[in-house]
């Protein structure tokens, strides 16, 4: 039985976890709170279809339930949840890339603008936006995931570190390398940002 939104909204995340341990129905509070953000995240790092993203999210929440006693309160619950979703997504994405089941995912102008501004790419037209899409799709996963977490999910280095289980220094290094990889990937695939 789903817990009502009114009850869920009154509870902090730690309280929800405590209540989950007594009644699995409170898992729905977590799901409702994170569903939209996580579906968006899954789509950004894997470029799979919405239906597949929902399947991945459901599997992830089953794993969250199974591992609920493993949650370490010293890190943010959101980081822990993102970590499980991230790992499940990568696992499924690796299976899908082999079978060619990749869909094209729209990204907002604003978000693409933030990446390209940071990468010193001048203001883009529609063709440039499409090119940016293509480059992001072609980039190695370890660079794509830090880009998505920083620019799309707006997470800080500590949160990214907790999700990917890497030192914060490595997060900074990967972001730096991601910028270079972005430009070299564009060059390799002969992707132009302007006509």
């Amino acid at each position, binding site marked *: 039985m789903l817990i009502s939104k009114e009850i869920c909204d009154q509870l902090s995340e730690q309280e929800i976890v405590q209540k989950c*341990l007594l009644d*699995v129905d409170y898992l729905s509070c977590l799901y*409702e709170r994170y569903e939209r953000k996580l579906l968006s995240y899954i789509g950004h790092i894997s470029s799979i279809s919405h239906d597949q993203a929902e399947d991945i999210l*459901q599997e992830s929440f*089953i794993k969250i339930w*199974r591992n609920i*006693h493993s949650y370490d309160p010293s890190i943010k619950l959101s980081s822990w949840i993102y970590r499980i979703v991230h790992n499940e997504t990568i696992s499924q994405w690796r299976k899908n890339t082999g079978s060619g089941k990749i869909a094209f995912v729209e990204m907002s102008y604003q978000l693409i603008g933030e990446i390209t501004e940071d990468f010193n790419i001048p203001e883009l037209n529609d063709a440039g936006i499409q090119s940016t899409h293509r480059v992001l799709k072609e980039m190695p996963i370890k660079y794509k995931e830090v880009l998505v977490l920083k620019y799309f999910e707006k997470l800080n280095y500590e949160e990214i570190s907790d999700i990917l289980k*890497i*030192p914060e220094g490595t997060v900074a290094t990967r972001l730096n390398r991601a910028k270079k990889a972005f430009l070299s990937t564009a060059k390799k695939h002969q992707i132009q940002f302007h006509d």
Partner: protein
Amino acid sequence: MGNAQKILERIRKEEIKPTPAWQVLFKRIFIWVGFAFAICFGAISFSVILYVVQQTDFDLLSHMDHSRLELILALMPYIWVVFLILFLLLSVLGMRNIPKGYKHSLQKIFGITTLLSIVFGTLICIAGGGQYIEQTFESKIGIYRGVEQRKIEMWSNPEEGRLSGEIISVAQNALTLRDYQEAEWTIEYPDAFIAGRVQLVVGEKIKMIGEIKSDQVFLSSEIKPWGTGQSGKGRGQRRRNNE
């Protein structure tokens, strides 16, 4: 049916249960214990290596055609070096798996685990642990060639001017030595440098630099105690017979 509802129904239908808290705790304790063991065994390995280096007679170099590196390589207990590397790798793995262990870079983790092994290993060696472990291995494991055995091999080369063994008698002008191959030698030492710790009494084990004078007669120019790599230079003296 909403996705949240689907998840709850699946959990109930398949009777999916959370991993028990005790199991999670047990796994964490296991990792910590594993990490501690890896550090301990790394420290033990280092203590043995340190003991072996202590036993190395570096002042032999002036009497040999080998470099310092060749001498160390000849005496180095490779199996303990392999153990040390293995336990360092295990302790790095352990540290990466402890809560928030991923926050530290690989270099930092490796540095910390190496430092812990060195510090504890040095303490174990000072307490005599390195020697005890090395000698235990030598006596209990047939294929293990300990530093003692290597020292004997190095110091049982009278043709190259190195001889060692146990004093079995002391006479006016010479002493009799039984070497590690059970052969008896007459040792003459008219102008030998004798290390401070050497007493030249029956039962004492010594090692000597010199040359073969004649059949089973060895003319010694330096006499040192068998027990350590240190010659006691500076504390010894040149003695004539009867002094």
